[in-house]
Structure formats: C-alpha cells, structure tokens
C-alpha cells in the first residue's frame, strides 16, 4: 500500500519503539515520585561541571569574560535544549560573581530563547540590572563564518574561560584549539560522537555524551531534575541487559530477541 493511500492507524513495525518509550516514561514517573518522597538522588560528581565554578571564579579574578558557546544545533536538537538549561545555570553563576558573559548564537530561534533564559537567570540572582543587552547575540548561520567570528572574539577579548556545550561539528577542533592558544580554561560537552575526541585532546574537561544531558540537573541539584537522570540510568541499564541477553541468545541459535530490538 503506498503512503498516499495508507489508512492504517498504527505501524506495527514500530511497536518496540512504543513499548520502549512507555517503559522510559514509567521509569521517569517512578523516579519523580521517589524524588518527591524525599529519596536521596545521587549523581556521581562530574569533574567538568565542578570546574565550571572554578572557571567562572578565574574569569572574575582576571577581569575577563566567560565565553559560552551553545553549539551549532537548532531548537529541534536535544543538544541545544540541554545547552540552554546549562546556560541558565552558568548565567546565574556569572551574575552572582559579577563576571561578564558572552554568548554568540548560531541559530536565530535558539539565540532568542537563550537571551530569555540568560535574562531570567540574572533576575533570579538579583542582578537584573547587571544584564548587558547583547550578552546573547546572533552571529550567523554559516558554519565557518560563525567559527571566524568566535575565533576573532577569542583572540581579541581573551576570555578566561570557554564553555562549549551543545552540538558541534567540524568546527569543534578549530574553536577548541583557538581557545587553547589564548590560555583559557576550557570545558566542553558535545552530543556528536565524532567530535568528542577533538574536545578531549584540546579541552581541560570534557563531558562525554550523556553527561551533557545530565549537566543541567547536576548544576541545579533539584530533586525532580535529578530524578530524570536516574530514569535515564535505569533505561541504560535495561538496554545494556537486553543487548547482552540478545547477544547470548543469538550465539545459541535464537536470534528472535535481537530481531525484536530492530527499529524502522
């Protein structure tokens, strides 16, 4: 049956995805209930996130700005959403410490939203008057033009701390190496697997993969946010167990479980 004439109300090939989503939501609800019930939600300390305070403190002492790069993703990407959550925390810290913050934006929609998040963070820190219009500013939606603009800022203004959080692509090493040249302390978190090695080589601290998505919860330490990280861990444990079981089953001549896990 062609797509144009498709009149079915459910795609049976995607039932495994629906079950997986339902299980994840169940984990989420369970952990939020645990969090609201007073359970201690522990997240192991992440060196990169503990270093954020140190980096902002260093920038304050040196009288130089903090450069926050939210990545080259748009609002449809989870990396950008995670970056906005982290920006709120970072902006609050810079407001409390009286340090300048600069956030060059790549996507115009994300830039507008980040501006609102940063303003709100300054308001919550009681430093609304310290928020400088133009702290979050749109640069360009051309990849290497953005890189050129940000590199120029790094070399002219010499920020004391560079924080890269979001979706980065070919420009990741360019930005990290330029920041390295200026002697800035650099903290990176990226959801692109292919770019992580470049950040690991060129930055002082790197958040690997899912740590980017846990960062917002770690910095805020709010129980409900920590509960979502716990749900994420439960889902990962379940996924790992299913991979191992299906591997063993396939090795023993029963590939059905592995076929069940295939997606379309």
């Amino acid at each position, binding site marked *: 049956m062609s*797509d144009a004439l498709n*009149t079915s109300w*459910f795609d049976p090939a995607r039932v495994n995805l629906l079950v997986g989503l339902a299980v994840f939501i169940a984990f989420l609800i369970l952990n939020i209930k645990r969090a609201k019930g007073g359970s201690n939600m522990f997240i192991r300390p992440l060196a990169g996130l503990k270093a954020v305070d140190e980096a902002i403190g260093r920038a304050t002492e040196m009288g130089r700005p903090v450069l926050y790069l939210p990545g080259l993703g748009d609002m449809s990407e989870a990396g950008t959403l995670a970056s906005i959550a982290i920006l709120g925390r970072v902006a609050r810290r810079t407001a409390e410490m009286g340090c300048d913050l600069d956030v060059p934006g790549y996507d115009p929609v994300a830039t507008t939203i980040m501006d609102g998040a940063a303003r709100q963070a300054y308001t919550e820190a009681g430093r609304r008057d310290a928020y400088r219009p133009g702290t979050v500013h749109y640069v360009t939606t051309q990849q290497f033009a953005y890189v050129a603009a940000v590199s120029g800022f790094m070399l002219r203004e010499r920020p004391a701390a560079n924080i890269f959080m979001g979706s980065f692509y070919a420009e990741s090493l*360019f930005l990290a*190496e330029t920041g390295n040249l200026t002697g800035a302390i650099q903290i990176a978190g990226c959801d692109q697997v292919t770019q992580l090695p470049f950040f690991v080589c060129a930055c002082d601290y790197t958040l690997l*993969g899912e740590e980017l998505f846990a960062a917002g919860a770690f910095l805020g330490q709010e129980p409900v946010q920590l509960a979502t990280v716990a749900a994420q861990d439960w889902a990962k444990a379940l996924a*790992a167990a299913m991979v191992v079981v299906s591997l063993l089953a396939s090795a023993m001549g029963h590939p059905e479980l592995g076929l069940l896990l295939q997606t379309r």
Partner: protein
Amino acid sequence: MRNGPLVITFLVATSLVAMFFIPHHKVQEGQSVLLNWANVVYAFALILGSLTLWVSHQKKVLARAEGWPYSVVTLAALSFVTVAGTVQGVEEGTLVNRYYNMVNSPLASTMFALLAFFIASAAFRAFRARNAEATLLLGTAIVMMIGRVSVGEFLWSGFPPVTEWLLDVPNLAAKRAIALGIGLGAISTALKIILGIDRTYLGRS
C-alpha cells in the same frame, strides 16, 4: 496564562510523537503542515536575529569601538545581500549567487582547510607518553596513521587489516556505547521539555 506555553508545548510535542506511530496519510499530511509552520517561525526569527546583528554592529561603528572597520564590512555585506536578494532573487546568475560562489564559498573552504593545521597541533600536544593510557593512545595513533597511507602497506602488509580492526571493533564499540547514552539522554531531555519539568526555554527556572 502562565501555563499557556507549557500546554502548547505538551500538545504539539505529543501530537508529533503520536504522528510518528500513525502512518495514516491524513496524519502524515498534518505532520508536514506542522513542520512547515516551524520553517515560518524560523524565518521570522531570522529577521529578528538580523536586526539584532545590525543594531550591535551599528553601535560599534558609531562609537568607533575597537574593530569598528570590521563592523562596517559586516553591515555592508548584510545590506548588499538583503537588497540584492530581495530585488533579483538568489537563482543562478544573480548577484547574490555570484557573491556566494566567488566570496562566501572560497572563504568557508579556506577556514575548513585550516583545520588540517589545527589537527596537527592538537596531535602534537596530545600524543605524549605521559602515562599508560597516553602511551596506548600514542601507539594506536601511530598504527592508524601508518595504516591509512600507501607506505604503510609497503612497510608491512598487516598494517591495513590492523587499522581496519581497530576502527571496526574497539572504536566502533566505544562509539556505539556513547551513542546509546546520548540517545537516552536526548529522550530524557525531550521528555523534560514536553512534560514541563524543564522550563528554561521559556525563560523560567
């Protein structure tokens, strides 16, 4: 009123998730309409972003701030592309198209080409035998670099297969493990937004 945006986010997001599982042609048409609306929102945000860009660079020029000549170039390029694109369009042979092919593309390619030198400097700094893990990284990098060039096979026929094994087994295993975590993290982040647990995108904590 304060919860209006949260309700809209929840309804639109759950609709899009549901549409993923419903192949009915009317539902898929509705999904296309919603995604086209996103393009319209993007276009307006682009106008807002361009205006912000204009204002910030104009201030630098009027105040003769450091680097103000570069702001003049930025404003000139922004004006030219906007006016020429509006008057002539952006098809083949128009001023904007020629500007893109003769100026923008070569500049972007130049920047991309610089990446090779940055890779060399990062490798020189990172591949040092400081400890066991760093030594392992250094050894693997040497094998990979030799195995990827023709002289590697000339020196020893085993270099290419070893290189391929390194890429296909340990490297791929690590990539998939990280990708699994990223996928689950992305789902968690999306659910936090949909369910209103994370409201930073609205300018609220």
